[in-house]
């Protein structure tokens, strides 16, 4: 019952908002928030049941119905899904409250909350399902919700294109998971987690293939290279969407998938190597790309990609607790960063270019303090949430025997500190630059302001609607890591029954030294950012410096490592060319041409014999007589022979 409540209440909220949207208007926000508060409370109430060892397996399980013969559907709440469900409903609730303020003056507020609630339902389907098909259903539905919300302002062509791109790339992931399901079903005859994980040896040679295809799915959803290009574009959606879907929850589904399938990963060393490497590379690439961005949300998007790279690296190298821990802390500080950025964007009437911001410290103090905490957290400053989890991931890579990933992790941490503080300094320090000529700060093609047209009788939302969630998230960005202190922390005990404990030899560099190295690298990153953007000299000269930097950015970073072009040239262009060739040459000329040749042959034959059709009645009669005569002759000969 409890599980059904967690699962279905958001759906009910979505249906109510969808069906009665025009009547509800702003009350849709209340419906949306309640539809999240209920499952959040229900999840907390289920805590003890979900962590207990009931019978053979940990957690609450509820079988629901047989979807198809051999495909049974049920719900499962164990510690892993509990963590996700808590973040989805808890952080989701805060973001919903924030959204009421953010969407206060948007006419389509009911539609917005219908989509948001639907997303939560889909995400809960994903994490609560006890089998791969249910997971895939949730996987697809969150993609759909993401599609709707990215393209929420459907009159903007850029938003529409971004939504399509996100959906199509996510479908690549969906079909990859589908193929993994075929493999598992063919070998184990089931799609339920329990059965598949109980028969890992049965997969035999296909184990690596299963892992690869599952990971393609994870990579598409979690924006791992080379399937990451949709995530920065997805920032076309409203900011709360970016916070909930493209930072805190949906994009971490890949982490969930790998963590959920730990028995597979534990059994396949190649898969660990693959996933760890991709995760590390993504972390690095995201951080590098974050350096060259000016759009506040795109910087955050690349940082999300980079941080998920860490998580994937963590779970990939089988440091599952560490990877999940980074998801946990990241959800708070990244949501906080997005929502804070949302306050800033809201304050500036939808301006997103940080070059045209500056001095926001006084105009948005709540955002300033919350984001400061979060920036420190994401940089891994000791004492803040990110410090504990990121440290664990990086050290885990070394611990599990991947020194290269360890090095990449440390380098990335430095870059992260640099570009996050760059964002922070440029946005909040100095003086406001929005009233300067855009070209003066290096903005060549300024965006059109005001994505949504202000409605008549526009009123201001109460300030706490947006401020309180940001503040709460900011607090969590500080304290969320405290559950992870020490080897016998609450966090590790929580997952003791879920993930296997590995007995590992102590690595060459101890955890303490790792922390020290990380701190030095991070401090270096912050220092460079401070020197470049926040010294009094730099602040005084900010417009000129920003302009100069805009012109000097390396082309490869501005072009985002040419991934978009590469995908375009490798897949999109050939597909279109093929389609055009088939549709306008092959179909009409080759296939129909063949048919026409047949027709031509027949018409030719017809022309040959049409001479006989004189139209003269009497010659027809004569021909009939002629035929009759032939019969007569035949019978005469027959008779004569007899």
């Amino acid at each position: 019952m409890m599980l059904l409540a967690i699962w279905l209440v958001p759906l009910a909220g979505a249906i109510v908002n969808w069906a009665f949207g025009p009547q509800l208007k702003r009350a849709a926000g209340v419906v949306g928030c309640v539809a999240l508060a209920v499952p959040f409370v229900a999840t907390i109430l289920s805590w003890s049941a979900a962590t207990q060892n009931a019978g053979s397996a940990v957690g609450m399980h509820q079988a629901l119905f047989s979807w198809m013969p051999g495909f049974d559907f049920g719900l499962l709440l164990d510690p892993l899904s509990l963590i996700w469900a808590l973040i989805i409903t808890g952080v989701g609730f805060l973001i919903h409250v924030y959204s009421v303020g953010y969407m206060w003056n948007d006419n389509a507020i009911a539609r917005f909350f219908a989509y948001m609630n639907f997303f939560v339902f889909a995400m809960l389907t994903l994490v609560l399902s006890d089998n791969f098909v249910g997971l895939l259903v949730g996987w697809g539905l969150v993609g759909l919700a993401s599609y709707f919300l990215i393209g929420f302002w459907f009159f903007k062509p850029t938003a529409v294109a971004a939504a399509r791109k996100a959906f199509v790339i996510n479908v690549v992931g969906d079909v990859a998971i589908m193929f993994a399901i075929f493999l598992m079903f063919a070998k184990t005859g089931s799609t339920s987690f329990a059965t598949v994980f109980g028969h890992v040896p049965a997969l035999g040679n296909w184990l690596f293939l299963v892992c690869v295809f599952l990971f393609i799915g994870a990579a598409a959803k979690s924006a791992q290279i080379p399937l990451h290009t949709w995530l920065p574009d997805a920032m076309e959606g409203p900011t709360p969407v970016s916070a909930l879907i493209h930072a805190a929850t949906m994009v971490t589904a890949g982490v969930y998938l790998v963590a959920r399938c730990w028995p597979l990963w534990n059994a396949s060393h190649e898969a660990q190597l693959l996933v760890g490497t991709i995760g590390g590379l993504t972390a690095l690439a995201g951080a590098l790309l974050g350096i060259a961005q000016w759009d506040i949300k795109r910087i955050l998007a690349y940082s999300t990609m980079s941080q998920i790279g860490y998580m994937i690296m963590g779970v990939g190298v089988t440091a599952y607790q560490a990877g999940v821990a980074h998801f946990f802390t990241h959800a708070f500080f990244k949501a906080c960063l997005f929502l804070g950025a949302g306050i800033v964007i809201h304050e500036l009437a939808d301006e997103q270019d940080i070059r045209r911001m500056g001095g926001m410290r006084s105009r948005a103090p709540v955002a300033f303090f919350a984001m400061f905490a979060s920036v420190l957290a994401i940089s891994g400053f000791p004492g803040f949430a990110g410090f504990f989890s990121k440290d664990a991931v990086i050290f885990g890579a070394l611990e599990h025997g991947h020194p290269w990933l360890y090095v990449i992790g440390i380098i990335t941490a430095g870059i992260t500190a640099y570009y996050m503080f760059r964002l922070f300094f440029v946005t909040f320090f100095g003086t406001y630059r929005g009233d300067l000529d855009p070209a003066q700060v290096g903005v060549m093609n300024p965006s059109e302001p005001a994505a949504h047209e202000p409605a008549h009788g526009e009123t201001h939302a109460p300030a706490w609607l947006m401020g309180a969630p940001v503040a709460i998230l900011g607090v969590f960005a500080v304290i969320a890591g405290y559950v992870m202190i020490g080897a016998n922390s609450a966090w590790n005990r929580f997952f003791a029954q879920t993930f296997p404990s590995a007995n590992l030899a102590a690595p060459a560099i101890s955890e303490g030294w790792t922390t020290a190295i990380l701190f030095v690298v991070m401090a270096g990153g912050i220092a460079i950012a401070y020197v470049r953007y926040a010294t009094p000299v730099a602040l005084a000269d900010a417009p000129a410096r920003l302009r100069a930097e805009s012109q000097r950015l390396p082309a490869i970073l501005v072009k985002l490592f040419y991934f978009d072009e590469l995908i375009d040239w490798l897949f999109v262009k050939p597909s279109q060319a093929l389609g055009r060739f088939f549709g306008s040459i092959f179909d009409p000329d080759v296939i129909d041409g063949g048919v026409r040749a047949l027709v031509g042959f027949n018409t030719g034959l017809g022309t040959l014999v049409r001479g006989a059709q004189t139209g003269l009645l009497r010659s027809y009669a004569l021909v009939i007589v002629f035929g009759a005569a032939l019969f007569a002759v035949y019978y005469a000969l027959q008779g004569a022979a007899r």
Partner: protein
Amino acid sequence: MHANLLPVALANYVALSSVIFFIGVAGVVLRRNPLIMLMSIELMWNAANLLFLAFARAWLNNAGHIFAFLVITVAAAEAAIGLAIVVIVFRSRANVDVDEVAMMKG
């Protein structure tokens, strides 16, 4: 007349019927006037009927009579339709030369 056998040899009836039939054929093939063509067709029908009746008499089996009866009705229907066609062709062309009515030319 009251004997069971034919008064005249069956072969003679066959020959007579054939001759009348071929006269009908000749009429259809040689004449251009559709009315005379139709009449020639009637000749052919009747030649066939004569044969039916002759054989019926020879074998004392009245199935031939039934058939001849049916032939007469069908011939009547055919004549009616044929004449109707002649009438409408004349209406539309004021000319009933069958060689000039060649709409079915391929």
